[in-house]
Protein backbone atom coordinates (compact mmCIF):
# COMPACT_ATOMS: atom_id res chain seq x y z
CA UNK A 1 0.00 0.00 0.00
CA UNK A 2 2.30 2.84 1.24
CA UNK A 3 1.68 6.56 1.11
CA UNK A 4 0.40 7.66 -2.32
CA UNK A 5 1.38 11.29 -2.74
CA UNK A 6 -0.74 11.88 -5.82
CA UNK A 7 -3.81 10.56 -4.06
CA UNK A 8 -2.89 12.64 -1.02
CA UNK A 9 -3.15 15.78 -3.16
CA UNK A 10 -6.67 14.86 -4.27
CA UNK A 11 -7.83 14.72 -0.66
CA UNK A 12 -7.60 18.48 -0.12
CA UNK A 13 -10.17 19.58 -2.72
CA UNK A 14 -12.46 16.87 -1.37
CA UNK A 15 -12.45 17.86 2.28
CA UNK A 16 -11.50 21.55 2.29
CA UNK A 17 -15.05 22.63 1.39
CA UNK A 18 -16.15 21.14 4.71
CA UNK A 19 -13.75 23.39 6.58
CA UNK A 20 -16.41 26.05 6.03
CA UNK A 21 -18.85 23.96 8.02
CA UNK A 22 -16.31 23.27 10.75
CA UNK A 23 -15.60 26.98 11.08
CA UNK A 24 -19.29 27.83 10.93
CA UNK A 25 -19.97 25.41 13.79
CA UNK A 26 -17.06 26.75 15.82
CA UNK A 27 -17.96 30.40 15.33
CA UNK A 28 -21.66 29.92 15.98
CA UNK A 29 -20.95 27.90 19.11
CA UNK A 30 -18.43 30.54 20.16
CA UNK A 31 -20.84 33.44 19.86
CA UNK A 32 -23.52 31.53 21.72
CA UNK A 33 -21.00 30.54 24.41
CA UNK A 34 -19.82 34.13 24.74
CA UNK A 35 -23.33 35.41 25.35
CA UNK A 36 -23.97 32.60 27.86
CA UNK A 37 -20.64 33.19 29.57
CA UNK A 38 -21.32 36.90 29.99
CA UNK A 39 -24.74 36.19 31.49
CA UNK A 40 -23.31 33.52 33.79
CA UNK A 41 -20.45 35.69 35.00
CA UNK A 42 -22.76 38.62 35.69
CA UNK A 43 -25.10 36.34 37.69
CA UNK A 44 -22.20 34.90 39.64
CA UNK A 45 -20.60 38.26 40.29
CA UNK A 46 -23.82 39.67 41.72
CA UNK A 47 -24.42 36.41 43.60
CA UNK A 48 -28.03 36.06 42.55
CA UNK A 49 -29.48 33.48 44.93
CA UNK A 50 -31.01 30.28 43.56
CA UNK A 51 -29.62 30.92 40.09
CA UNK A 52 -26.17 30.78 41.58
CA UNK A 53 -26.60 27.27 42.99
CA UNK A 54 -27.85 26.12 39.63
CA UNK A 55 -24.91 27.77 37.83
CA UNK A 56 -22.37 26.17 40.17
CA UNK A 57 -23.93 22.80 39.43
CA UNK A 58 -23.91 23.43 35.68
CA UNK A 59 -20.29 24.59 35.63
CA UNK A 60 -19.16 21.69 37.77
CA UNK A 61 -21.06 19.16 35.66
CA UNK A 62 -19.83 20.44 32.31
CA UNK A 63 -16.26 20.83 33.41
CA UNK A 64 -16.01 17.43 35.07
CA UNK A 65 -17.55 15.12 32.46
CA UNK A 66 -16.39 14.16 28.95
CA UNK A 67 -17.97 16.26 26.25
CA UNK A 68 -18.87 13.16 24.17
CA UNK A 69 -20.91 11.88 27.10
CA UNK A 70 -22.72 15.19 27.30
CA UNK A 71 -23.40 15.09 23.58
CA UNK A 72 -24.75 11.52 23.69
CA UNK A 73 -26.87 12.33 26.71
CA UNK A 74 -28.55 15.19 24.90
CA UNK A 75 -28.69 13.66 21.41
CA UNK A 76 -29.61 10.05 22.26
CA UNK A 77 -30.82 10.28 25.86
CA UNK A 78 -33.22 13.19 26.05
CA UNK A 79 -35.40 12.18 23.03
CA UNK A 80 -36.35 9.00 24.93
CA UNK A 81 -38.12 11.16 27.50
CA UNK A 82 -39.08 14.07 25.28
CA UNK A 83 -39.63 12.63 21.78
CA UNK A 84 -40.01 16.09 20.20
CA UNK A 85 -36.35 16.63 21.02
CA UNK A 86 -35.47 13.99 18.45
CA UNK A 87 -36.70 16.30 15.68
CA UNK A 88 -33.94 18.82 16.31
CA UNK A 89 -31.18 18.93 13.69
CA UNK A 90 -27.95 17.27 14.90
CA UNK A 91 -25.99 20.33 13.87
CA UNK A 92 -28.00 22.45 16.28
CA UNK A 93 -27.54 19.90 19.06
CA UNK A 94 -23.80 19.93 18.43
CA UNK A 95 -23.66 23.73 18.54
CA UNK A 96 -25.62 23.80 21.79
CA UNK A 97 -23.45 21.18 23.51
CA UNK A 98 -20.24 22.84 22.36
CA UNK A 99 -21.53 26.22 23.52
CA UNK A 100 -22.72 24.97 26.91
CA UNK A 101 -19.40 23.28 27.41
CA UNK A 102 -17.20 26.19 26.43
CA UNK A 103 -19.38 28.76 28.20
CA UNK A 104 -18.58 27.07 31.51
CA UNK A 105 -14.88 27.80 30.92
CA UNK A 106 -15.37 31.22 29.42
CA UNK A 107 -17.54 32.35 32.31
CA UNK A 108 -14.69 31.60 34.69
CA UNK A 109 -12.23 33.46 32.46
CA UNK A 110 -14.48 36.51 32.38
CA UNK A 111 -15.22 36.40 36.10
CA UNK A 112 -11.53 36.03 36.89
CA UNK A 113 -10.76 39.04 34.70
CA UNK A 114 -13.26 41.22 36.54
CA UNK A 115 -12.06 40.01 39.94
CA UNK A 116 -8.49 40.90 39.06
CA UNK A 117 -9.25 44.61 38.54
CA UNK A 118 -7.76 46.25 41.64
CA UNK A 119 -10.14 47.92 44.04
CA UNK A 120 -8.15 51.15 43.65
CA UNK A 121 -9.45 51.52 40.09
CA UNK A 122 -13.02 51.59 41.37
CA UNK A 123 -12.11 53.97 44.19
CA UNK A 124 -10.36 56.34 41.80
CA UNK A 125 -13.35 56.33 39.46
CA UNK A 126 -15.75 57.05 42.31
CA UNK A 127 -13.46 59.76 43.66
CA UNK A 128 -13.67 61.75 40.43
CA UNK A 129 -17.46 61.43 40.50
CA UNK A 130 -18.06 58.67 37.97
CA UNK A 131 -21.31 56.73 38.20
CA UNK A 132 -21.25 52.94 38.31
CA UNK A 133 -22.14 52.77 34.63
CA UNK A 134 -19.36 55.19 33.67
CA UNK A 135 -16.88 53.29 35.83
CA UNK A 136 -17.70 50.02 34.12
CA UNK A 137 -17.75 51.50 30.63
CA UNK A 138 -14.56 53.55 30.76
CA UNK A 139 -12.39 51.82 33.33
CA UNK A 140 -13.39 48.32 34.35
CA UNK A 141 -14.67 46.65 31.18
CA UNK A 142 -11.77 47.77 28.95
CA UNK A 143 -9.28 46.41 31.48
CA UNK A 144 -11.21 43.20 32.02
CA UNK A 145 -11.41 42.55 28.27
CA UNK A 146 -7.66 42.89 28.03
CA UNK A 147 -7.15 40.32 30.75
CA UNK A 148 -9.82 37.94 29.44
CA UNK A 149 -8.89 38.15 25.76
CA UNK A 150 -6.13 35.52 25.61
CA UNK A 151 -8.40 33.04 27.40
CA UNK A 152 -11.31 33.90 25.16
CA UNK A 153 -9.25 33.40 21.99
CA UNK A 154 -8.19 30.05 23.44
CA UNK A 155 -11.82 29.04 23.47
CA UNK A 156 -12.22 29.54 19.75
CA UNK A 157 -9.22 27.30 19.19
CA UNK A 158 -10.61 24.62 21.44
CA UNK A 159 -14.05 24.88 19.80
CA UNK A 160 -12.56 24.53 16.32
CA UNK A 161 -11.02 21.23 17.35
CA UNK A 162 -14.07 20.32 19.38
CA UNK A 163 -16.43 20.41 16.38
CA UNK A 164 -14.91 17.09 15.27
CA UNK A 165 -17.01 15.24 17.85
CA UNK A 166 -19.90 16.03 15.50
CA UNK A 167 -18.67 12.91 13.74
CA UNK A 168 -20.12 10.77 16.54
CA UNK A 169 -23.67 11.93 15.81
CA UNK A 170 -23.27 12.23 12.04
CA UNK A 171 -22.83 15.96 11.56
CA UNK A 172 -21.23 16.44 8.18
CA UNK A 173 -18.23 18.53 9.19
CA UNK A 174 -14.62 18.17 8.11
CA UNK A 175 -13.74 15.01 10.02
CA UNK A 176 -16.93 13.23 8.94
CA UNK A 177 -16.29 14.28 5.34
CA UNK A 178 -12.78 12.88 5.41
CA UNK A 179 -13.95 9.67 7.04
CA UNK A 180 -16.55 9.23 4.26
CA UNK A 181 -13.96 9.96 1.58
CA UNK A 182 -11.58 7.44 3.11
CA UNK A 183 -14.31 4.80 3.15
CA UNK A 184 -15.20 5.53 -0.47
CA UNK A 185 -11.61 5.31 -1.73
CA UNK A 186 -10.38 2.57 0.63
CA UNK A 187 -7.45 4.85 1.61
CA UNK A 188 -6.93 6.14 5.13
CA UNK A 189 -3.40 7.35 5.80
CA UNK A 190 -3.48 10.09 3.14
CA UNK A 191 -6.91 11.24 4.24
CA UNK A 192 -6.05 11.54 7.91
CA UNK A 193 -2.68 13.17 7.28
CA UNK A 194 -4.50 15.75 5.16
CA UNK A 195 -7.19 16.43 7.73
CA UNK A 196 -4.62 16.69 10.53
CA UNK A 197 -2.64 19.19 8.48
CA UNK A 198 -5.73 21.30 7.88
CA UNK A 199 -6.69 21.41 11.59
CA UNK A 200 -3.09 22.15 12.45
CA UNK A 201 -2.81 25.01 9.98
CA UNK A 202 -6.06 26.60 11.15
CA UNK A 203 -5.07 26.41 14.80
CA UNK A 204 -1.60 27.78 14.01
CA UNK A 205 -3.19 30.76 12.30
CA UNK A 206 -5.44 31.32 15.31
CA UNK A 207 -2.51 31.03 17.72
CA UNK A 208 -0.60 33.59 15.67
CA UNK A 209 -3.57 35.90 15.88
CA UNK A 210 -3.75 35.32 19.61
CA UNK A 211 -0.14 36.23 20.32
CA UNK A 212 -0.47 39.19 17.98
CA UNK A 213 -3.38 40.50 19.99
CA UNK A 214 -1.58 39.84 23.28
CA UNK A 215 1.55 41.66 22.16
CA UNK A 216 -0.44 44.64 21.01
CA UNK A 217 -2.28 44.87 24.31
CA UNK A 218 0.89 44.50 26.35
CA UNK A 219 2.68 47.11 24.31
CA UNK A 220 -0.09 49.56 24.96
CA UNK A 221 -0.03 49.30 28.72
CA UNK A 222 3.49 49.04 30.02
Amino acid sequence: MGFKFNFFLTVFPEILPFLKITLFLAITAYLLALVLAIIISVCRTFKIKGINKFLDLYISLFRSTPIVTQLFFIYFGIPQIIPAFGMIDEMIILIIVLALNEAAYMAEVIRGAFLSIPRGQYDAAKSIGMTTRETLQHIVIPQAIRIALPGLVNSIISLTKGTSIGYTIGVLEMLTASQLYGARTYRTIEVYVAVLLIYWAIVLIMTRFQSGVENRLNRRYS
Partner: protein
Amino acid sequence: MINIKNLHCQYGDLKVLHGIGTTIKKGEKVAVIGPSGAGKSTFIKALNYLVPPTQGILEIEDLKVDFETITPKEIQKLRRKSAMVFQQHELFLNKTVFDNILIPMTVVQNIPKDKAVEEANEILEKVDLIDKKDKYPLMLSGGEQQRVGIGRAIAVHAPLLLMDEPTSSLDPELVGELLSLIQLMIEEEQKTLIIVSHALNLVKEIVDRIIFLYEGNILAEGTPEYIFNGSRDPTLKKFLYSLSLAN
Protein backbone atom coordinates in the same frame (compact mmCIF):
# COMPACT_ATOMS: atom_id res chain seq x y z
CA MET B 1 -17.01 75.87 54.22
CA ILE B 2 -16.98 72.26 55.38
CA ASN B 3 -18.82 71.19 58.47
CA ILE B 4 -18.45 67.69 59.88
CA LYS B 5 -20.64 66.59 62.78
CA ASN B 6 -20.67 63.39 64.81
CA LEU B 7 -19.01 61.23 62.16
CA HIS B 8 -19.11 57.51 62.91
CA CYS B 9 -17.49 54.77 60.83
CA GLN B 10 -17.12 51.07 61.35
CA TYR B 11 -16.00 47.97 59.47
CA GLY B 12 -18.29 45.14 60.47
CA ASP B 13 -18.22 45.23 64.26
CA LEU B 14 -15.01 47.23 64.44
CA LYS B 15 -15.83 50.84 65.33
CA VAL B 16 -13.14 53.06 63.85
CA LEU B 17 -14.44 56.64 64.15
CA HIS B 18 -16.37 57.57 67.28
CA GLY B 19 -18.30 60.71 66.39
CA ILE B 20 -15.78 63.13 64.97
CA GLY B 21 -16.60 66.77 64.27
CA THR B 22 -14.83 69.86 63.00
CA THR B 23 -15.32 72.89 60.78
CA ILE B 24 -12.97 73.84 57.99
CA LYS B 25 -13.05 77.23 56.29
CA LYS B 26 -12.99 77.62 52.53
CA GLY B 27 -9.41 77.60 51.31
CA GLU B 28 -8.07 76.28 54.59
CA LYS B 29 -5.30 73.65 54.48
CA VAL B 30 -5.60 70.95 57.10
CA ALA B 31 -3.31 68.04 57.91
CA VAL B 32 -4.56 64.93 59.69
CA ILE B 33 -1.93 63.12 61.74
CA GLY B 34 -1.95 60.20 64.13
CA PRO B 35 -0.53 56.73 64.66
CA SER B 36 -1.16 53.84 62.29
CA GLY B 37 -4.69 52.51 62.67
CA ALA B 38 -5.98 55.77 64.20
CA GLY B 39 -8.57 56.05 61.43
CA LYS B 40 -6.98 58.75 59.26
CA SER B 41 -7.67 57.00 55.95
CA THR B 42 -11.13 56.05 57.10
CA PHE B 43 -11.86 59.67 58.01
CA ILE B 44 -10.71 61.09 54.70
CA LYS B 45 -12.48 58.38 52.70
CA ALA B 46 -15.69 58.95 54.62
CA LEU B 47 -15.78 62.48 53.22
CA ASN B 48 -16.29 61.20 49.67
CA TYR B 49 -18.16 58.09 50.73
CA LEU B 50 -15.49 55.62 49.62
CA VAL B 51 -16.02 54.34 53.14
CA PRO B 52 -19.68 54.70 54.07
CA PRO B 53 -20.12 56.31 57.51
CA THR B 54 -22.81 54.81 59.72
CA GLN B 55 -23.79 58.14 61.21
CA GLY B 56 -23.00 61.83 60.95
CA ILE B 57 -23.75 65.00 59.07
CA LEU B 58 -21.51 66.55 56.45
CA GLU B 59 -21.89 69.97 54.89
CA ILE B 60 -19.77 71.02 51.93
CA GLU B 61 -20.70 74.41 50.50
CA ASP B 62 -24.36 74.22 49.47
CA LEU B 63 -24.68 70.47 50.02
CA LYS B 64 -25.74 68.92 53.30
CA VAL B 65 -26.01 65.16 53.78
CA ASP B 66 -27.06 63.02 56.70
CA PHE B 67 -25.24 59.69 56.44
CA GLU B 68 -28.09 57.80 58.05
CA THR B 69 -30.49 58.78 55.27
CA ILE B 70 -28.13 59.49 52.35
CA THR B 71 -29.50 58.61 48.89
CA PRO B 72 -27.56 57.44 45.80
CA LYS B 73 -28.19 60.86 44.23
CA GLU B 74 -26.68 62.59 47.25
CA ILE B 75 -23.66 60.28 47.16
CA GLN B 76 -23.10 61.30 43.56
CA LYS B 77 -23.42 64.99 44.46
CA LEU B 78 -21.11 64.56 47.43
CA ARG B 79 -18.45 62.96 45.26
CA ARG B 80 -18.57 65.90 42.87
CA LYS B 81 -17.58 68.16 45.77
CA SER B 82 -14.17 66.61 46.25
CA ALA B 83 -11.25 65.02 44.46
CA MET B 84 -8.78 62.58 45.93
CA VAL B 85 -5.06 61.89 45.57
CA PHE B 86 -4.18 58.36 46.64
CA GLN B 87 -1.09 56.93 48.25
CA GLN B 88 -0.72 54.37 45.44
CA HIS B 89 -1.70 56.95 42.78
CA GLU B 90 -4.51 54.74 41.43
CA LEU B 91 -4.30 56.17 37.94
CA PHE B 92 -6.56 54.64 35.32
CA LEU B 93 -4.27 51.95 33.90
CA ASN B 94 -6.03 51.71 30.56
CA LYS B 95 -5.81 55.44 29.90
CA THR B 96 -2.87 57.56 28.80
CA VAL B 97 -1.55 60.32 31.04
CA PHE B 98 -3.49 62.79 28.93
CA ASP B 99 -6.75 60.82 29.13
CA ASN B 100 -6.36 60.39 32.89
CA ILE B 101 -6.57 64.15 33.16
CA LEU B 102 -9.18 64.56 30.45
CA ILE B 103 -11.65 61.98 31.73
CA PRO B 104 -12.96 63.87 34.79
CA MET B 105 -13.77 66.78 32.50
CA THR B 106 -15.26 64.95 29.52
CA VAL B 107 -17.06 62.05 31.17
CA VAL B 108 -18.06 63.50 34.52
CA GLN B 109 -18.42 67.23 33.96
CA ASN B 110 -19.46 67.14 30.29
CA ILE B 111 -17.11 69.98 29.41
CA PRO B 112 -16.93 70.38 25.59
CA LYS B 113 -14.08 68.32 24.18
CA ASP B 114 -11.98 71.17 22.76
CA LYS B 115 -12.17 73.16 25.97
CA ALA B 116 -11.31 70.09 28.04
CA VAL B 117 -8.34 69.26 25.81
CA GLU B 118 -7.05 72.78 26.16
CA GLU B 119 -7.31 72.65 29.92
CA ALA B 120 -5.79 69.16 30.14
CA ASN B 121 -2.78 70.54 28.29
CA GLU B 122 -2.54 73.45 30.72
CA ILE B 123 -2.67 71.09 33.69
CA LEU B 124 0.01 68.88 32.13
CA GLU B 125 2.24 71.94 31.73
CA LYS B 126 1.79 72.77 35.39
CA VAL B 127 2.67 69.28 36.61
CA ASP B 128 5.49 69.24 34.05
CA LEU B 129 4.44 66.11 32.18
CA ILE B 130 3.52 67.45 28.77
CA ASP B 131 6.23 65.33 27.11
CA LYS B 132 4.80 62.18 28.74
CA LYS B 133 1.19 62.84 27.81
CA ASP B 134 0.84 59.81 25.53
CA LYS B 135 2.43 57.35 27.93
CA TYR B 136 0.46 54.90 30.05
CA PRO B 137 0.70 55.16 33.86
CA LEU B 138 2.79 52.04 34.33
CA MET B 139 5.46 53.49 32.06
CA LEU B 140 6.07 56.35 34.51
CA SER B 141 8.10 56.60 37.70
CA GLY B 142 6.29 56.83 41.05
CA GLY B 143 6.87 60.57 41.29
CA GLU B 144 5.58 61.14 37.77
CA GLN B 145 2.51 59.01 38.45
CA GLN B 146 1.72 61.04 41.52
CA ARG B 147 2.02 64.26 39.53
CA VAL B 148 -0.58 62.83 37.16
CA GLY B 149 -2.68 61.99 40.23
CA ILE B 150 -2.52 65.61 41.32
CA GLY B 151 -3.33 66.79 37.81
CA ARG B 152 -6.33 64.49 37.66
CA ALA B 153 -7.56 65.78 41.01
CA ILE B 154 -7.28 69.36 39.76
CA ALA B 155 -9.24 68.42 36.63
CA VAL B 156 -12.17 67.38 38.81
CA HIS B 157 -12.76 71.09 39.57
CA ALA B 158 -13.97 70.32 43.07
CA PRO B 159 -13.68 72.76 45.96
CA LEU B 160 -12.20 70.15 48.31
CA LEU B 161 -9.03 68.13 47.79
CA LEU B 162 -8.47 64.97 49.83
CA MET B 163 -5.01 63.46 49.94
CA ASP B 164 -4.18 60.22 51.73
CA GLU B 165 -0.42 60.00 52.22
CA PRO B 166 0.29 61.32 48.72
CA THR B 167 4.04 61.24 49.26
CA SER B 168 4.64 58.11 51.28
CA SER B 169 5.26 55.83 48.30
CA LEU B 170 7.87 58.24 46.90
CA ASP B 171 11.61 58.49 47.33
CA PRO B 172 12.44 60.89 50.21
CA GLU B 173 14.10 63.44 47.93
CA LEU B 174 10.88 63.80 45.90
CA VAL B 175 8.60 64.51 48.86
CA GLY B 176 9.44 68.20 49.23
CA GLU B 177 9.14 68.77 45.51
CA LEU B 178 5.73 67.14 45.36
CA LEU B 179 4.41 69.05 48.36
CA SER B 180 5.53 72.32 46.75
CA LEU B 181 3.64 71.32 43.63
CA ILE B 182 0.54 70.56 45.70
CA GLN B 183 0.85 73.92 47.41
CA LEU B 184 1.23 75.73 44.11
CA MET B 185 -1.76 74.00 42.50
CA ILE B 186 -4.16 74.60 45.38
CA GLU B 187 -3.14 78.17 46.18
CA GLU B 188 -3.89 79.11 42.63
CA GLU B 189 -7.40 77.71 42.79
CA GLN B 190 -8.30 78.58 46.39
CA LYS B 191 -9.06 74.97 47.17
CA THR B 192 -9.62 73.50 50.59
CA LEU B 193 -7.14 70.74 51.40
CA ILE B 194 -7.29 67.85 53.83
CA ILE B 195 -4.07 65.87 53.76
CA VAL B 196 -2.97 62.81 55.70
CA SER B 197 0.78 62.68 55.90
CA HIS B 198 3.67 61.35 57.91
CA ALA B 199 6.06 63.89 56.39
CA LEU B 200 5.16 66.26 59.21
CA ASN B 201 8.19 68.53 59.10
CA LEU B 202 7.35 69.37 55.48
CA VAL B 203 3.57 69.32 55.72
CA LYS B 204 3.51 71.74 58.64
CA GLU B 205 4.95 74.36 56.29
CA ILE B 206 1.98 74.19 53.93
CA VAL B 207 -0.99 73.76 56.27
CA ASP B 208 -2.93 76.19 58.47
CA ARG B 209 -4.15 73.60 60.90
CA ILE B 210 -3.31 70.11 62.15
CA ILE B 211 -5.81 67.58 63.48
CA PHE B 212 -4.46 64.85 65.74
CA LEU B 213 -6.52 61.70 65.43
CA TYR B 214 -6.09 58.92 67.96
CA GLU B 215 -8.13 55.71 68.16
CA GLY B 216 -10.98 57.29 66.26
CA ASN B 217 -11.21 60.53 68.21
CA ILE B 218 -9.78 64.00 67.66
CA LEU B 219 -7.52 64.52 70.67
CA ALA B 220 -6.06 67.88 69.62
CA GLU B 221 -6.32 70.39 66.80
CA GLY B 222 -4.80 73.76 66.07
CA THR B 223 -2.12 75.62 64.19
CA PRO B 224 1.13 73.76 63.55
CA GLU B 225 2.69 76.04 66.17
CA TYR B 226 0.07 74.96 68.72
CA ILE B 227 0.35 71.27 67.90
CA PHE B 228 4.14 71.26 68.11
CA ASN B 229 4.67 73.64 71.00
CA GLY B 230 1.38 74.64 72.62
CA SER B 231 -0.62 71.50 73.28
CA ARG B 232 -0.08 69.66 76.54
CA ASP B 233 -1.94 66.53 75.44
CA PRO B 234 0.31 63.69 76.64
CA THR B 235 -0.75 61.30 73.87
CA LEU B 236 0.08 63.90 71.22
CA LYS B 237 3.44 64.61 72.84
CA LYS B 238 4.23 60.93 72.90
CA PHE B 239 3.23 60.58 69.26
CA LEU B 240 5.35 63.56 68.16
CA TYR B 241 8.26 62.22 70.16
CA SER B 242 8.02 58.78 68.51
CA LEU B 243 7.85 60.53 65.13
CA SER B 244 10.98 62.56 65.82
CA LEU B 245 12.78 59.35 66.71
CA ALA B 246 11.64 57.77 63.46
CA ASN B 247 13.06 60.64 61.45
